[in-house]
């Protein structure tokens, strides 16, 4: 019997026929990258292949790398196999990677969500025989509401704070979530300020043609009093730091919010200690995962990160040939961000560190 099209090694997902890895976590010669987040696009690969949309962020983060780009849907032959990249809807430029050999098709999802977020190219299901999927939120307790509803909630919070003379500090990951929020909120409510880590990513994405509202970068010189009622978008690690306390206004301390899928759980929300938790994720919820898997038509499912053991059992009961694969992917970080040392913006963080936060 021929070797499987993809195998799972201690360096990452490997295609023996094509001699390449997908999202490897240790240095390899040839790496196909689903998207620019730090746990998927790492330093030290000989050659990289990614979508045009993912490339600018990767170059920004990883510096001078040998990077070749493809368009969504364009087919390349690598070694003896065909590869193509298809929208994953996770962040701008993110892709599922399709690998085909003599009619046998495997797809590696990377990270994905099925709802259109208005910024990323929306997720497209790809028919395949074997599907390698994340399951960060692979429990039935996770059921997202439409983005418009969450945006309306954020707008109401921001509007209320602005009326009371308070700033609104919204914690969101610097690559993807932050820009998604910028594009979704009602920017007529007031000025929008950004933490350096967020603004650096904004600059990269604007340069590649994405439309974002006007934002003001916060620097040590910024007069925080000059922007009453502002929305301040910052990485979660900046919440609760002296950086955040600078935004105290006539209405007192700023109100803090945190946008993450984990905010669906009250216990997590309370532990984060933010005033408000907004349930918004760039990963698929339970229904999204199940729908995406069904639409692939795949019989074999490999689950890579998230609630893998539970989700595998669920899939097995539905009749799939399902297995857990150990990987180094992290999904949506729940607590790690709070442990990071960056106190936010006082010393401009290096572009690389910025995006490390953008899990």
């Amino acid at each position, binding site marked *: 019997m021929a070797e499987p099209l993809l195998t799972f090694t201690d360096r990452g997902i490997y295609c023996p026929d094509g001699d390449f890895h997908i999202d490897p976590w240790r240095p390899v010669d040839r790496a196909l990258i689903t998207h620019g987040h730090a746990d998927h696009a790492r330093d030290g690969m000989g050659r990289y292949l990614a979508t045009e949309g993912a490339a600018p962020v990767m170059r920004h983060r990883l510096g001078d790398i040998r990077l070749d780009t493809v368009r969504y849907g364009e087919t390349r032959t690598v070694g003896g196999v065909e590869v193509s990249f298809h929208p994953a809807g996770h962040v701008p430029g993110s892709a599922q990677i399709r690998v085909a050999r003599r009619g046998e098709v495997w797809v590696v999802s990377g990270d994905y969500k099925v709802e259109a977020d208005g910024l990323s190219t929306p997720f497209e299901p790809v028919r395949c025989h074997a599907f390698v999927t994340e399951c960060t939120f692979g429990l039935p307790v996770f059921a997202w509401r439409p983005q418009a509803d969450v945006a309306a909630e954020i707008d109401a919070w921001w509007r209320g704070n602005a009326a009371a003379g308070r700033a609104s500090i919204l914690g969101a990951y610097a690559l993807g979530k932050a820009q998604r929020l910028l594009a979704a909120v009602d920017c007529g409510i007031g000025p929008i300020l950004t933490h350096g880590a967020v603004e650096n990513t904004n600059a990269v994405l604007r340069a590649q043609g994405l439309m974002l509202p006007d934002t003001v970068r916060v620097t040590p010189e910024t007069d925080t009093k000059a922007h009453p009622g502002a929305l301040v978008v910052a990485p979660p690690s900046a919440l609760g730091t002296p950086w955040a306390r600078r935004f105290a206004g006539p209405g007192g301390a700023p109100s803090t919010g945190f946008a993450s899928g984990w905010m669906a759980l009250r216990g997590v929300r309370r532990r984060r*200690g933010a005033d408000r938790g907004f349930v918004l994720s760039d990963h698929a919820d339970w229904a999204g995962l199940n729908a995406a898997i069904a639409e692939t038509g795949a019989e074999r499912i490999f689950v890579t990160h998230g609630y893998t053991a539970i989700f595998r059992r669920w899939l097995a009961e539905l009749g799939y040939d399902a297995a857990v694969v150990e990987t180094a992917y992290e999904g949506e970080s729940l607590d790690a961000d709070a442990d990071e040392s960056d106190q936010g913006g006082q010393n401009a963080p290096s572009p690389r560190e910025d995006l490390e936060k953008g899990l």
Partner: protein
Amino acid sequence: MKRFAALFTALDQTTKINPKVAALADYFAEAPEDDRLWTVALLSGRRPKRTVTTTLLREWAAARAGLPLWLFEECYPIVGDLAETIALILPPPERREDRSLTAWIGEIRALSALPPEDRRARILAAWDVLDRTERFVFNKLITGGFRMGVSQKLMTRALSRATDIPEPDLAHRLMGDWSPDTVSFETLIRAPDPTVDLSKPYPFYLAYQLDDGPESLDGPPAGWAAERKWDGIRGQLILRGGTHFLWSRGEELMTDRFPELARIADYLPPGTVLDGEVLAWRDDAPLPFNALQKRIGRKTVPKKLLTDAPVILYAYDLLEWAGEDRRALPFVERRALLEAAAAEVPPDAPLRVSPLVPFDDWPALAAERARSRDLSAEGIMLKRWDSPYRDGRKRGDWWKWKVDPLTVDAVMIYAQQGHGRRANLFTDFTFAVWDGNQLVPFTKAYSGLTDAEFRQITAWVRKNTLERFGPVRSVKPEHVFEIAFEGIQASARHKSGLALRFPRMARWRRDKPAREANTLADLQAMLAAYG
């Protein structure tokens, strides 16, 4: 329910006190009177009797959501709250129906009279007309343990704002043996009749912990009275209308558990209320706490226990005398009244006055404190001579100056995830000491680490799990923690042969290798010295 759910959301959406009080005060000003009363009841720990078991709720919820029960059971520990797990997995409601909080509570209580199949139908019908927050609240009403991030103190403040009744008066009115069935908002809060509930206790005054030594207190030593801090059960003894009541600090009636205290009513007049410590007592000295412990769990007491562990009330304050509230008097006068009253009680009756500890200066008191363990006391209580008897925990007049805890360095060997706010974090640990080359588990501990430390240890546990036993994981015996505890007792129920009181993690000893943790022999030596 909409209004109550909105209140819940408002309280849940902020960590700041003022917005919470404002939201509650608004609710108390606007909500229907019976809903207000139930809200006061719920926020003071009163709840409808459980009418459906959680096992049935889980089965019904999983079936309604079209999920296998095992999947529900996997979700529950991750969410950390049963009511929330159910609210999250159910499909969206099919239609909406707004009934009052009181109406829904009535619905829940009515279930007790119905056969199981009808209970199921009623619960499913309720879930079908409630949105996610309302369902969560509804489930919480069934499962109990309703906490909304609001203490009774905060609720009392909001109620005071809404009714213009001073907080201390409200705190008193909310005490005791009432339920929404026995009172109305009017009779409980607006126009209480003191003769209706003879058992009504006063709010307990609680001391703050003194961390920096008595030199940090205001004024000279002469302004302060000192007593021993006894290791018993705080109790308020009420003598009114020819009968007596004993209340615990947790507002539980303990009268029947300590029947020997009835004798006190033979010597003291009705209209007397004493605050003190219930202690197991023999030969003019307190017995160790575990003698008393045998009596705590029992509603009634067999004769043998009455002779093995007889109790007394070691009184230290007098709140009511001759039917009048004396709490506003300075402590020095209340103490004089107490001593005069107790002088009428014969020495063999179960009432004594907790003696003062005389001292001239703070070093002298420190020397007295150092004797605490020898006297089976937990430390020293300091009370300002001119202070009134306040309600709740108020800083300034009463301080507890506890002896330093006992400590032992132990190795973490099992870890388990927490619940609620601590769901998804490993916070519940089992610790062991060395017995030769064996690690013998001897205690669990849950508290004492910072959130950041809990996150670090959680990441470590995930990577260093040896085996899983349901929710419990055994981990590499690598990390040493200093365990602090208040007391140590022999225990036949524990493998180690001993049990600790109030164990907690005092420090993470990252500097210590596991091999250098304490031994079982060290613990046995502590047991011999302090047990």
